[in-house]
């Protein structure tokens, strides 16, 4: 794991493998990284917004749990973004298949399940609160 982290910060090492690709591919890879980073930032922003704008929920500390979950998910998305960027860059330089990833599917499931849980919480409040 530390080896992978060291690699992200060592552009010379990444630039030494394979051959320099058409710059358009590198730029597209960088834009994909930035799009993922913004996804992570949106989750972080969502967590911060949940902590201050959500009304009290029926379960104690549910608001804080939601906020912390979104913040940590955002951090995970950002870390995964740079890892995927480095692995894709390496694959492009070596002319290999691009790395496959289950991460988008897992993230979609997590967001979907989280949204469903919130729907249940809102319905419980509507039924029980009034």
């Amino acid at each position, binding site marked *: 794991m530390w080896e992978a982290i060291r690699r992200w*910060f060592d*552009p010379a090492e990444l630039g030494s493998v394979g051959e320099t690709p058409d*710059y358009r591919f590198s730029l597209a890879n960088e*834009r994909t990284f930035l*799009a993922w*980073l913004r996804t992570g930032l949106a989750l972080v922003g969502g967590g*911060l917004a949940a902590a*201050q704008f959500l009304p009290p929920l029926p379960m104690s*500390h549910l608001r804080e749990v939601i*906020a912390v979950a979104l913040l940590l998910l955002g951090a995970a998305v950002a870390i995964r973004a740079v890892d995927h960027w480095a692995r894709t860059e390496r694959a492009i330089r070596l002319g290999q298949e691009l790395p496959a990833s289950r991460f988008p599917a897992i993230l979609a499931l997590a967001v979907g399940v989280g949204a469903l849980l919130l729907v249940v919480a809102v319905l419980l409040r509507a039924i029980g609160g009034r």
Partner: protein
Amino acid sequence: MSTGRDPGLQPERTRLAWRRTLLTVTVVTVLAVRLASTGDPTGALIAGCIVLVWGALLVLCWSRGTGTGPARTGGRTLPLVTVGTVVLALLGVLLVLRGLW
């Protein structure tokens, strides 16, 4: 129809992506500072750290989002903005947990 390498467009699109990222960082910073502003010293300290991280991300994104020179890709900027984002998220966790003490 000509299919050149659109030498101007690709770097421009990437610069705009960096600027969008900086905008998103700024929105997150504003939300975090608002959450931190409750008048206590801990909140002020965390807010200060958040503004420092924002400044670092501003410099990083600005250096890649401006200019008209040849395309620059990769480098240490990408892992560094990731670190900045992760630090923002962890400071956010501190802010949320602070409310429970």
